[in-house]
């Protein structure tokens, strides 16, 4: 490790620098940069939140549940524990044990990501996605309108297409996506289906009825006569229809969330980059796990350093949890 003295030199040889391996030094320096990286996100979140006149905090709105956050905290802490005992086992040259601990860590990382995905799914399901959230009444109504419009249009084109398989003669609308013409085709088809007593008739009559109900809602929204919560009622009425309510299933209820977009932006960027770090950590673990029975003392430093990295990932979560879930 130390330098062999140069023969005849007047100066005793000195190991310059500090007494840790280069790799560990480098990793710590890297962690310093990582701290600044997350500081930028966390700091941004804090100051933007303080600088906003209001912030969505109710779990009903944000779909942020302390239970899942707490559980994930526990999962990460546990995994951190396993990584450190894994390193301890490496130090004692008990490589089989080390492998086992590392496997536990890896499994917990997967659990963490699983829970995270579940939480993401909840947000996506309620369309709590940055850029898509209505911030006032008007936008909420507009959003319902455009989403229902899309749903109706889809149904419309679907029904027109279906006519082919029903062997119904009809004049192909020209251009194909002209909704007025498509609607005319449907009207026409209703008559023909009635005549042939086809079982598909209900669908087409249903559409006409639905289209009318939708048209009323649209009128009301465009005329700005109703508030978003009234639109919400109308929407749930539509959705409640036994025959065609399902068409509107993809339409989200109008929830104006004040500062919702910036909230979602912060939430996703912080947890997202944290999740990316989790994945990177998992890749490091896979490299070790892949060694199988070849794992030996050469890997101790590697395990220690990936462990340090993993603890850092844990540390970030330790701060994200209160900031995002509790406050």
């Amino acid at each position: 490790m130390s330098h062999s003295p140069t023969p005849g030199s007047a100066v005793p040889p000195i190991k310059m620098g500090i007494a840790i391996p280069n790799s560990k030094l480098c990793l710590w320096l890297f962690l310093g940069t990582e701290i600044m990286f997350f500081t930028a996100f966390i700091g941004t979140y804090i100051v933007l939140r303080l600088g906003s006149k209001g912030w969505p905090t109710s779990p009903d709105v944000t779909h942020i549940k302390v239970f899942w956050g707490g559980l994930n905290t526990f999962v990460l802490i546990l995994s951190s524990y396993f990584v450190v005992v894994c390193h301890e086992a490496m130090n004692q040259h008990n490589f089989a044990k080390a492998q086992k601990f590392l496997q536990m860590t890896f499994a917990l990382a997967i659990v963490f990501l699983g829970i995270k995905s579940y939480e993401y799914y909840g947000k996506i399901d309620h369309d709590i996605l940055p850029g898509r959230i209505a911030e006032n009444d008007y936008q909420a109504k507009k959003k319902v309108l455009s989403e229902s419009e899309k749903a109706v249009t889809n149904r419309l084109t679907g029904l027109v297409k279906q006519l082919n398989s029903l062997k119904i003669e009809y004049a192909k609308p020209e251009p194909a996506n002209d909704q007025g013409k498509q609607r005319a085709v449907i009207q026409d088809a209703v008559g023909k289906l009635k005549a042939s007593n086809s079982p598909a008739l209900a669908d087409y009559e249903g559409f006409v009825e639905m289209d009318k109900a939708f048209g009323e809602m649209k009128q009301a929204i465009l005329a700005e006569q109703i508030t978003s919560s009234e639109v919400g009622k109308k929407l749930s009425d539509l959705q409640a229809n036994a025959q065609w309510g399902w068409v509107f299933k993809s339409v989200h209820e109008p929830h104006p969330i004040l500062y919702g977009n910036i909230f979602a932006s912060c939430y996703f960027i912080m947890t997202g980059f944290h999740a990316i770090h989790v994945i990177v950590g998992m890749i490091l673990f896979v490299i070790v796990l892949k060694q199988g029975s070849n794992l030996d003392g050469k890997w101790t430093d590697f395990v220690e350093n990936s462990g340090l990295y993993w603890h850092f990932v844990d540390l970030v979560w330790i701060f994200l949890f209160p900031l995002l879930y509790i406050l």
Partner: protein
Amino acid sequence: MHDDHGGHGHPNYFLVFAALCGFTGLSIMADVVTLPYGVKIVAVLSVATCKALCVMSWFMHLKYERAWKYVLLAPTTILALGLPLALMPDIGEHYYTPDVPQVDDYAEAVAHAAEHVGGHAETHAVHPETTTPDSGATSESK
């Protein structure tokens, strides 16, 4: 080799783990019971700091490292705290008048709802206290 803390044996990692779990329990408690908002902020953030210190000292072995840890961590900490602090006067507060239509809209909507009897315009989407236009920051939420 790397083992320059040889003499210490190893700390009881399980104990550290248990402490971390305890701290997590504490922060969840802080959410369950109702605390004044300011107290809550201080409480959960200090709990988080304690947790961080536990992880750093024992899991990351900083307790056993030499002085370089201060050289590395002191500037990092200063910068990491300093950046958000320096952003506060500009972003966290506003010296000039913010021009925020969504808040104005919201105030209007609330006023509008109050006119209607039954006031059902009160959206369940937004927490009413947090969003009264002049309640400043989030201070009194929940």
